[in-house]
């Protein structure tokens, strides 16, 4: 009999964990989008105030953002810039989007917005570069607001769904 209870406990725990995981993905997506926004603002500051060249600016910004996924993305762009076959910074940014997208919780739509920040990167004068980054940051802000709304409305639903589906399975099996 105790084996049955132990099995039920395992099923319930797994279902709760699955529900929490889905909720965490929503939370992480929101945080990652906010961190990307912060990264673009910091990049704009590096460009606007000290005209730091892109490779150094990317490393500097990666040290100042907290999210490891966004740090990894910025370091990947930097790494791409060191490759001899890299033609320009836009290509490096887009290559990093390709390489990193499975490791973060962003949706395809979010990545499309992140990819838009590549347009003209490093190939514009200072003022135009700042305008372009500001435009990308505005789009990310809209995306982050939408992600936050989804998180607020769906977080509890996923947690309850996890626990309740676990309970349903247990009841059916018992």
């Amino acid at each position, binding site marked *: 009999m105790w084996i049955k209870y132990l099995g039920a406990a395992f099923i319930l725990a797994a279902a709760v964990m699955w529900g929490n995981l889905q909720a965490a993905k929503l939370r992480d997506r929101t945080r990652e989008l906010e961190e990307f926004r912060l990264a673009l603002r910091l990049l704009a500051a590096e*460009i606007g105030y000290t005209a*730091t*060249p*892109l*490779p*150094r600016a990317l490393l500097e910004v990666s040290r100042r953002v907290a999210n490891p996924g966004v740090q990894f993305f910025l370091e990947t762009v930097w790494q791409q810039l060191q490759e*001899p076959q890299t*033609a320009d910074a836009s290509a490096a940014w887009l290559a990093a989007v390709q390489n990193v997208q499975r490791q973060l919780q962003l949706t395809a739509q979010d990545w499309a917005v992140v990819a838009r920040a590549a347009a003209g990167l*490093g190939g514009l004068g*200072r003022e135009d570069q700042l305008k372009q980054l500001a435009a990308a940051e505005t789009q990310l802000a809209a995306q982050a607001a939408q992600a936050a709304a989804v998180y607020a409305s769906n977080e509890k639903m996923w947690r309850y769904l996890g626990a309740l589906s676990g309970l349903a399975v247990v009841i059916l099996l018992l």
Partner: protein
Amino acid sequence: MKKRTWQEQILPLLPLPLREIMAALPPAVADSLEEIRLRVGQPFMLHSGQGEVWLGHSGPVVSLDEACRITAADLQEVLLQMTEFSLYARDEELKRGYLALPGGHRAGFTGRVVMEGNQVKVLRDLNAVNIRIARQFKGVAVPLLPHVYCAEQQRVRHTLIVSAPQAGKTTMLRDLARLLSNGDGQRRPGFKVGIVDERSELAGCFRGEPQLDVGMRSDVLDGCAKAEGMMMLVRSMSPQVIVTDELGRAEDARAVEEAVNTGASILATAHGQNAGELIRRPSLAYLLENGLFERVIVLSRRHGPGTVENIYTGQALQEWLRAGRECSVD
């Protein structure tokens, strides 16, 4: 620390195919290389002590048909590499048509210029890049020292070095700055030298750090307009000698005059092959006719860059100027 060769500094900036061609240059060409010329649709070309060299995919060629042709994409890649993929970081230099490179080398650019009022807004659609290899010839100015340094008064004379382009003015001026800054440790003391390096040619600064040896008592204002720079140095660094390249504008003349009045000595260069050419430029004429320069050193390329043709002083200088004035009136 081992000094990096021009190959280590310049080749990573070139597109891979051009890099491979350059890496296989014959030593005689590589050792005397002066310029790498990249022009859209034209042969890959070098200027060295051996003269003009055309390059094909396997090295120097004699026929234009075999020469490797440069594309617009090559130039764009060179530009992005030189700016570390960050045009915004170097846009002020680009507006002036050049970039300073690590090692004191320089790249000049031509292309389509977009103007805003009287100012260059941006240089785009590049059609040519000229990479000039910086070489420092230490000691070339030693023969000039007795003319420039007055041992009795322990001061540097106000001196103008003149020549046509590429005759060694800047090389000579840089070496004079180094020699005067370091002193000889015995009878000639080291001077505090302030260098206004408007085009990053004298000290070859890269990210503010001089890449060429300009002496241990030299302070370098890099990328600063000459007139403003001279005044900044006087106000902040109390230089005994002010060194600057290519005087010519009216504000330069005013700044030189003011700097001289503060007690600093001036070492400068100007374009011109003879007195007539100098006199035709009002600001230089003003400085020379008022006797501000005690020495005028004329260089040429007759026996190679840096050949000293004449050193004018006192009465001889006045006569030379008079002859130039008459020549210029004719």
